[in-house]
């Protein structure tokens, strides 16, 4: 079996750029593991609605939901211990603030702060950081043999790796705090501290954005003071968790040159971060062209259909060249291709089929 380590892992992180079918692959891996008797949860960020429905997820919720027995029975599968959860980023952030704030009052102050409200939904890296946070929490609770996590769609897969660092360094706000020092030092009046560069900067900023913004921002960092350590330690713990040999990163890609190059680069970067690479999955691959070089088409209709087949052959050949590049870089047992399906993957039965195409056995050829 290819990608064997993935099913034996305790944590599987599915990564890849947007639109390549990460959510489907995450769900298929989770289903396969649960069918093999492992108690599993899949945490998704932004699933297609019908797939979400098939997993029994109707809305964002920060609590795991068991996939009902009937869904398994309808797919002709034995009921298994498989939970699913759709991550609510904002709530996770609030929960984190409540956990690390020195007092309930401080937590409330932060959550009500305008600066916090502006950043907690929009700060880049928040989704990624919160996904990692949830992963850590689930892992510590120890209710599952396997946690499969689907990562948020990012411009490129690397954003995901750097996100927690970017976010904690923003929250640490060294640079910002230096500039804001006079404002944070508050009490004695804004501009009394003799930090000349910072004071002149603040004057400009105040002129442009108004004093309210400065005091909101300063209040936020003042309240956040002391919490940052908790955040940082937590981020570090998550990072260590991801580095454990029982974790597998699965990179999902489309069979195009661009996407394959990006996936290869990501796989390399994982190694340089010392994060365990579990395998690479190429999704929606057209089958190998197998048309004879010479075909006699007698009718207009036959010519038209042959024209279609020839064009598909061209596209398939182009995909083939991208995959050859992959072949030369990745060990054969560490990558698989999923053929382009004629149907959309919207229920457990179709997910099981995808799982079989990934992990071997009776996967059907779609065409």
């Amino acid at each position: 079996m290819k990608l064997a380590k993935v099913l034996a892992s305790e944590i599987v992180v599915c990564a890849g750029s947007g639109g390549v079918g990460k959510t489907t692959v995450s769900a298929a891996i989770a289903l396969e593991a649960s069918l093999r008797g492992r108690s599993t949860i899949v945490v998704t960020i932004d699933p297609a609605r019908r797939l979400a429905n098939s997993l029994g997820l109707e809305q964002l919720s920060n609590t795991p939901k068991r996939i009902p027995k009937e869904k398994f029975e309808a797919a002709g599968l034995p009921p298994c211990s498989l939970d699913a959860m759709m991550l609510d980023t904002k709530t996770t952030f609030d929960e984190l603030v409540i956990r690390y704030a020195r007092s309930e009052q401080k937590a409330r102050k932060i959550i009500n702060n305008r600066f916090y409200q502006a950043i907690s939904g929009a700060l880049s890296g928040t989704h990624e950081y919160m996904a990692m946070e949830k992963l850590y929490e689930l892992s510590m609770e120890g209710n599952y043999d396997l946690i499969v996590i689907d990562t948020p769609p990012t411009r490129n897969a690397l954003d995901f790796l750097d996100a927690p660092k970017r976010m904690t360094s923003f929250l640490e706000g060294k640079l910002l705090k230096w500039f804001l020092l006079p404002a944070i030092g508050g009490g004695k009046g804004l501009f009394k501290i003799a930090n000349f560069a910072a004071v002149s900067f603040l004057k400009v900023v105040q002129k442009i954005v108004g004093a309210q913004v400065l005091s909101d921002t300063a209040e936020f960092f003042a309240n956040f003071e002391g919490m940052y350590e908790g955040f940082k330690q937590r981020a570090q713990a998550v990072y260590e968790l991801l580095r454990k040999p029982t974790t597998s990163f699965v990179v999902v890609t489309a069979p195009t040159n661009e996407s394959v190059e990006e996936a290869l680069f990501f796989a390399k970067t994982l190694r340089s971060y010392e994060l365990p690479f579990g395998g690479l999955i190429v999704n929606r691959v057209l089958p190998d062209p197998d048309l004879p070089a010479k075909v006699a088409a007698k009718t207009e209709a036959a010519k038209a259909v042959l024209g279609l087949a020839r064009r598909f052959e061209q596209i398939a050949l182009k995909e083939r060249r991208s995959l050859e590049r992959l072949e030369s870089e990745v060990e054969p047992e560490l990558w698989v291709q999923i053929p382009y399906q004629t149907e959309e993957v919207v229920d457990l039965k179709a997910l099981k089929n995808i799982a079989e195409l990934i992990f071997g056995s009776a996967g059907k050829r779609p065409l």
Partner: protein
Amino acid sequence: MFGYHARVSLAAILDRRLSIISGKGGVGKTTLAAVLGLVLSQEGRRTLVAEVEGKDTLASMFGAPPLTTQPAELADSLWGMKITPEEALEEYFDVQLHMKRIAKPLISSQLVDYVTHSAPGLRDILMLGKVWYAAVKRRDFDHIVLDTAAAGHAVSMLRSPEGFLHAVPIGPLATHTKQVLGWLQDPSEVGIHLASMPEEMPVNETIETTRMLEEKLGMNVSHVFMNMIFPPISDDPKVEAEVDAISSPLALASQGFGKKASEETFRILNFYRKRRSLQQEHRKQLSDELASTADIIDLPFIMSDVFGLDELRQLAEIAREQLTR
């Protein structure tokens, strides 16, 4: 109310100063930006395609070197450039605040880099501000096509000025932001075009985005461009009907194909038919839900292993034909 919708013609787009292209990653946003840019430039408009985050795809479609922050000619009457938050901020300090001296040290202090990378909303505002300035004040071009970020979302980008005003209610920055926001909401000046494709996720996303823009911002989507629609197998309806009648490999064998060729070709035909009918379901869902709200333009899947200027021109012609219908 009654499904009535005043069609937005090409003439209306030509009268605008800005076309914003949005949509999820992987649905062909950059292709659409290039196609719309070609359509407008072919109508004699000096058109600039501005890319928020360059993956160099746009330039390579035109066979041009990677874009920079200076406009470069891509075709007749068509230019392309990259816009970055740093450069947008520098320009803002210079031309709006008349504080050029402050801009340089501020940008080199890395503070800007740090803040704009942390808060995508701020990046959006800076870039929208720059586009406003270029389109309304400088007017070096008749029309700007803005290709937005892949990870971004039309709603969050267009709401960024609003969110910003919540956090920064007063001061010159707030005044300027209000000005830009007012302009963005004027459909005679700015059009929003969504790129989509006939699959479940992109279609749902398009429907949701259209509704949210209407509900949260009171903005209408001008056009939805459906990319990668599988076209009929033959342009001739009579031949297409004969193709439809092919129901087994045997039918192909009787029309001259050998055994292997007929099996293989039928397999591909079958795949194409099934995916095409799935596409049509999603396409229908989009019309059912949006027909009274936005115009839908269909762009075919170009079955070719290369994609360059010829293919873009082909799509531009198809788009132009539907926009003037």
